[in-house]
């Protein structure tokens, strides 16, 4: 006798513990197997792009802090670089080094959170998350030393940075760089070789290199799929061409590779930081730019390798103190486009893991 069954429609979110914010996934399921998925976005729309049209160029820096709240420094940098490109400002070298250090610290902090929440989605009761929070806390202490804030930094300024390094920063950073590899080894011991994580994450949430490129996926997610593409190498900005570091690349593009690539990137970021500490020159940290910037009429696009992927800003200026249009190319939003294709056919338990492994921040998705 054929059973008269029908698919279940399940709304995963917007209020669900593992949607990392307010994201809704309409799933059509046959039992626990996903037949169809539709991401619904926009629950966190705050109109950052429109607000930018009402702010002066300096004030927009505070808006960028809130796009991807786990990596405020990178957002600052991406925006500030676009305005510098637009108004043709030369940034002092010391400022560029400090920018690189702070952005790489931010990358480690962001990856810590990405991995912690990924393992949390896998079902570990917050233990790796707590360990990673501890490391992030140390990074936030360092960044607080720089600019006085822990999440919403507003540290970068057009033509440089707001504060020079305080005296005690470099020794503290040196301590951190010395300690951090031990902690990463500890994560390795706790997680990488763990059979449960391997069983859960390997072969799930597959994203082939071709699909990743087609969907416009960037960042660690793209590299996990086997495409060696990192703007720090491919299109060096700031002083990245002066450092030696590797780009970790995954083989399969599954959840485990996305985990592994992020873990390795933390090590590479530490390499960059310790090189930057050695090379950092003296001098000014801010070019002579007025508080109210008037870029010439025109347009500019600039992108950086943010922890989540390519973060780009496209700004059209009409010569006044605020931009005519500010478009944000946010990596999380574009990476999320590939989600539906990655989860169809897998089980409900793997949906949250795949979503977690994409490292999506909803503030950046909905802007």
């Amino acid at each position: 006798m054929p059973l008269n069954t029908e698919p279940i429609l399940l709304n995963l979110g917007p209020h669900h513990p593992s949607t990392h914010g307010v994201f809704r996934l309409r799933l059509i399921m046959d039992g626990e197997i996903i037949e169809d998925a539709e991401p619904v976005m926009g629950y966190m729309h705050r109109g950052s792009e429109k607000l930018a049209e009402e702010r002066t160029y300096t004030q927009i820096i505070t808006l960028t802090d809130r796009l991807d709240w786990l990596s405020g420094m990178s957002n600052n940098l991406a925006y500030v670089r676009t305005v510098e490109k637009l108004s043709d400002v030369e940034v002092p070298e010391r400022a560029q080094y400090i920018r690189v250090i702070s952005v790489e610290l931010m990358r480690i902090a962001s990856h810590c959170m990405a991995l912690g929440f990924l393992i949390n989605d896998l079902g570990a009761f917050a233990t790796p998350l707590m360990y990673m929070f501890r490391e992030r806390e140390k990074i936030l202490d360092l960044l607080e030393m720089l600019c006085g804030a822990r999440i919403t930094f507003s540290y970068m300024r057009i033509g440089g940075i707001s504060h020079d390094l305080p005296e005690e920063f470099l020794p503290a950073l040196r301590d951190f760089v010395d300690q951090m590899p031990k902690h990463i080894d500890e994560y390795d011991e706790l997680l990488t070789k763990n059979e449960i994580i391997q069983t859960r994450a390997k072969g799930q949430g597959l994203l082939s290199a071709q699909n990743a490129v087609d969907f416009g996926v960037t960042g660690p997610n793209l590299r996990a799929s086997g495409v060696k593409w990192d703007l720090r190498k491919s299109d060096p900005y700031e002083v990245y061409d002066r450092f030696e570091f590797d780009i970790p690349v995954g083989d399969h593009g599954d959840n485990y590779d996305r985990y592994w690539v992020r873990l390795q990137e933390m090590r590479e970021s530490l390499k960059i930081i310790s090189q930057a500490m050695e090379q950092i020159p003296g001098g000014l940290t801010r070019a002579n730019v007025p508080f109210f910037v008037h870029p010439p009429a025109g347009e500019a696009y600039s992108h950086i390798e943010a922890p989540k992927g390519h973060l780009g800003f496209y700004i059209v200026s009409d010569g006044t103190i605020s931009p005519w249009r500010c478009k944000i190319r946010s990596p999380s939003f574009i990476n999320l486009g590939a989600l539906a294709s990655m989860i169809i056919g897998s089980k409900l338990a793997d949906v949250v893991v795949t979503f977690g492994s994409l490292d999506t921040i909803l503030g950046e998705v909905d802007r």
Partner: protein
Amino acid sequence: MSNEIISFFNTFLSTSQSEAMATFVGIFFLINFVIIIVAFMTLLERRLLGRLQNRIGPNRTGPNGLLQPFADVIKLLTKEDIVIPAADRWPFNIAPLLALMPALSVWIVIPFAPTWILADLDIGILFVIAITGVSVIGVFMSGWASANKFALLGSMRSVASIISYEVPMILAIIAVVLLVGSMSMQQIVLFQSIPLVLVQPASFVIFLLAIVAELNRSPFDIVEAESEIIAGYHTEYTGMKFATFFLAEYTAALAWSAVVVTLFLSGWRIPFVQADIHPFIDGLVFLIKTIFVFCIFVWFRGTWPRLRIDQILGFSWKVLFPIATLNLVITAIEVLVFNDVFAVAEGETLPTIALVAMGLINIAIFIVVGIALNKFIKPIDQEPQSYPVTREGMTL
């Protein structure tokens, strides 16, 4: 102990009435004792998880947070009791009790000390298995009645995993029963001149893993997988009904810890000390062992992520079930041979030296089988089972 209570009631009641009253008093004390211990177990779990996670854990309520369980209860009692309109009222309301009842009933046959046992049933361990099988009905009822898809998924998962894990669990228990020659819990404890974990290591490991799955604790906590299906079957429960589920879960965890201690860790006996000293000391030893086993569950929870449902069921049927069957066969042969070799008369048990020998043989087999299995386990299949990306399949 019970005789004194009966004679106390005999002063003003008939014999049958006073026996009933004595049983009632026993149950009353047992339930209250267990629930208070369980309340503190929740605190212990939270403190322990806190320390495992490099933080402190709840310690603000009372000295060292000792009043935290009471604060939790007061909070849950004063919460609004919501029954959603779409819910099936009767099953929805009964389910928490159905989940709690079996967890408390298990304690009837648990021997705390030589004389401290509410009912030394001949079929003690069978009773435990039978009565805990009922709890799944409560879970399934709540999931069905909640009119919530997450709850339904959770309860479905619960049924699947409990059915699968009862098989290896019972096979592991049978090995012990075969060795002891009795299903009475008290007899099993009295038999253990050395803890049975040393004699039956495979049974112990299988049993421990099976009860972790039975209790829905990490790494088999798919039933309440927070990151997937929110809270599973009790998603829609609030206030005291939620608390009842919570209590049921922890009572069951503690009850199964007690069963582990009884079956494998020589119950109230202090290892390598033959005589029972005093019921209080025996009870204390039993409690400490039980809490230790409970802490192992917490340790698992604090370390491991969870498996997926198909992996959990596969682990039960493909790994635990064959090993448990093999273990049962080996144990049967061993019991037969050892009874012959040591010329054990009818009604007597194996001498300690026989158990030691058996333990050595079993540990050797355990290690050999483990190494052999390791050869057979392939690394996780890395070949992508790629899902084609088509526009047609999506409602974008």
